[in-house]
């Protein structure tokens, strides 16, 4: 009794010390246990959601099964290698913070704890490719020019640093304008993609159609931010230059002006990107909105899901389901939205596996073909996409049988990511938030711009603002 009384605090103390020293050592079990090759048997992938994991498990040829051991699980490959997906959600910048910390500790980490591969998104891709933490895809990982030849040039440009390709992507994300066929008939008298495209070919035409739509009781767009990326992707320079000076591009001002007009004239439904009304507007129960700007993943996942909330399929009745009622056209400008890249991490002990995974997931024509046909995602393999675009039997049921791959193909070749920068995520998010006060009339332009600066200053260090911020709209 007396001894056990002494033991409790001692145990607690010991437990506390043990707790402090045990982080990040859960993958070391297989270290050196009979590994015959020089390569490690543990492959760590850092990412922010399970999208790539799903793709990997469905399409990577050597994948055997997912094994769950207690709280962790891994994907077992044919040669016995364990692939761990270490997921940190992006909320609150958590993913980048985790990645930064892990990459900085890469040299001192145990062999099986080192990151072998990590995923990055378009909005901050340039940040990582500019560091030594990302391997040269050709020189270090060993993919050949021939392997990479079918990728869209823009997906290589954005991740090229000092003439070295630092990452590869399995997808291209060209954007289109997805419109409702029934409302197109009301507004334009036709739902044929060619006719609709002719009517929406540039912003002047687009705006005049918005006025017509309004007179027929139809909103042109749902919310304030719908057209944002169509403008922002066509900026003439980066958001922030190398001396940390922020510029308000004429394209951003054009978006602000246009959106203010749309809001005041009632051309839009006054929603915010991703809010419930915005989602509802894409389906049968929302207000009548002619169309939505969406890129590849958005059309076949988000829009398709929202168009038919009750899962009725193609009913032919816009009051119950819009599945099959949508069609796509190019819209007033070419643009893109999103995109995920795979990076090889410096210090990896699995270079040949890294090579294999990168090749299979981003270079293989057969796998690219499979991904597009099964998930309808648009993959980064021009020859595979050309095959599907030319396939007259291929069509999306959601788009009423239209072959959207053919349109994506045209749009993808026009994408230019030259002006992508490390500050894009913060700038894009905060200009949309700050300007909403101006659109709704809560604040005037000068105060909204001032608020945008405050919001940027709260997330980035040492930015200054040039004269474009002081000029009137």
């Amino acid at each position: 009794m007396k001894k056990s009384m002494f033991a409790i605090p001692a145990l607690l103390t010991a437990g506390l010390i043990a707790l402090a020293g045990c982080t990040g050592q859960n993958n070391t079990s297989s270290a050196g246990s009979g590994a015959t090759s020089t390569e490690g048997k543990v492959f760590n992938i850092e990412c922010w959601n399970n999208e790539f994991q799903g793709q990997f498990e469905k399409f990577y040829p050597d994948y055997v099964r997912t094994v769950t051991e207690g709280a962790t699980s891994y994907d077992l490959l044919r040669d016995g290698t364990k692939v761990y997906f270490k997921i940190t959600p992006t909320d609150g910048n958590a993913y980048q913070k985790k990645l930064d910390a892990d990459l900085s500790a890469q040299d001192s980490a145990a062999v099986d704890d080192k990151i072998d591969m990590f995923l990055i998104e378009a909005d901050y891709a340039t940040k990582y490719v500019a560091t030594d933490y990302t391997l040269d895809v050709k020189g270090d990982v060993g993919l050949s020019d021939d392997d990479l030849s079918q990728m869209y040039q823009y997906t290589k440009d954005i991740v090229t640093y000092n003439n070295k390709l630092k990452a590869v992507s399995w997808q291209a994300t060209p954007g289109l304008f997805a419109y409702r066929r029934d409302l197109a008939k009301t507004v334009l008298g036709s739902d044929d993609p060619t006719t609709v495209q002719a009517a929406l070919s540039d912003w002047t035409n687009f705006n005049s159609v918005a006025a017509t739509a309004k007179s027929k009781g139809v909103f042109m767009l749902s919310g304030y931010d719908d057209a944002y990326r169509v403008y922002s992707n066509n900026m003439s320079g980066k958001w922030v230059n190398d001396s940390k000076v922020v510029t308000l591009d004429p394209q951003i001002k054009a978006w602000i002006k246009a959106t203010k007009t749309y809001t005041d004239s009632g051309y839009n439904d006054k929603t915010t990107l991703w809010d419930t009304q915005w989602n509802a507007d894409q389906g049968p129960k929302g207000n009548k909105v002619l169309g939505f700007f969406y890129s590849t993943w958005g059309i076949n996942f988000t829009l398709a899901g929202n168009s038919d909330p009750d899962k009725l399929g193609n009913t032919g009745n816009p009051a119950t389901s819009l599945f099959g009622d949508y069609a796509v056209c190019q819209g007033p400008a070419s643009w893109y939205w999103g995109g995920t890249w795979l990076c090889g991490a410096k210090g990896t002990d699995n270079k040949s596996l890294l090579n294999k995974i990168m090749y299979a997931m981003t270079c293989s024509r057969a796998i690219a073909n499979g991904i597009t046909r099964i998930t309808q995602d648009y993959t980064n393999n021009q020859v595979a996409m050309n095959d599907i675009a030319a396939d007259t039997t291929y069509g999306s049921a959601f788009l009423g049988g239209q072959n959207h791959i053919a349109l994506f193909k045209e749009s993808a070749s026009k994408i230019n990511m030259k002006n992508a920068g490390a500050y894009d995520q913060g700038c894009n998010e905060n200009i949309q938030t700050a300007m909403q006060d101006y659109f709704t009339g809560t604040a005037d332009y000068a105060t909204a711009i001032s608020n945008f600066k405050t919001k940027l200053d709260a997330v980035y260090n040492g930015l200054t603002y040039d004269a474009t911020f002081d000029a009137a709209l």
Partner: protein
Amino acid sequence: MKRLFSRKQDKGDHIHYEKWGYLFLIPFFLAFFVFQFIPLFQTIYYSFFNYYSDSALFVTIGPAWNGFDNFKYIFTSSTLRPISFLGISFGNVNFPNFWYYLINTVLIWIIGFIPQILLSLQLAIWFTDIKLNLKIKSFWKTVIYLPNLIMATAFGMLFLMIFARNGPVIDTLMGWNWISEAFDVSNNQIATRLIIAFLDFLMWFGNTTILLMAGIMGIDNSIYESALLDGASSRTMFHKITMPLLKPIFIYVVITSMIGGIQLFDVAQIFTQRSGGPSESSYTLMMWLYNLISYKQNYGQAGALSLLIFVVTAILSVGVYKTIHPRVNVTKDEMIARKKRFKEYAKCPSTIHEIANRSAAKTKGVE
């Protein structure tokens, strides 16, 4: 050491276990030192340094001593804002962000706290009232405490849905023809602040009620009994007995609630979806701190801001304490008189039974 933990019996056949308590305290102090004291010291220390991770460029700057620059930044950072007070518009004013966020935070706390303390006090009195003697008390206590068990973020999401433009509240109001057009509460300053304050109220009034009840139940029942014998009304008992004796707990509740109010974060963050509401009118100090530490990763500025929040909280706490608990100047004579009265009081009978016994004894002429 040997003496401290000795189990030897002393002359009086006593075994000393008291000093073992120190041993039991070690885990706490160790945890406190590692996880609280060191970070606390570091926060203050780094607030005088230029120290940040530039997340856009992947470099860490500092730490390099920069004196009061971080504090200067916190106080000088300002935004052009449309300012109006009681319906009078002052146009666009370049307003310091620190004060603006502090006003937002305190305003939201006050809007939520006034109904909260009134309702909690009323409920606490009903639950403890000996005359009222409510049935199924523990059921109601559980019910009012339940909102506190839901995570604040979940609560925020829930209310975001309820008050969405196509959500049930707007639908119902339109159904009743109270409003003609669907209305987005997230674009309305007053509505946003009110809803956040209401959420705070809903989450915490149960907790406050329980605390006040504990305070009231700690008051000796005999005082109420004797007051009842004297024919005091409920109102008089509340003013003359409950409130004065509840004061220590009451001050505790107000101050802890105020500290919680100044740290308002999750509900506002979720409900305004990080934007801080229209023109940042519901942007709180903690949301600023969160941005500085999570996105900007500027440990110096974040340290300075948290130190300032600490100072503001301390000043407000002292202010609240002094307001509720005003210090009365007592003369020396009065003090002596009080001590005398206290001694007499100590001799006094403390329950009505004793009073009865004594008076019975008196009549028997024993004394």
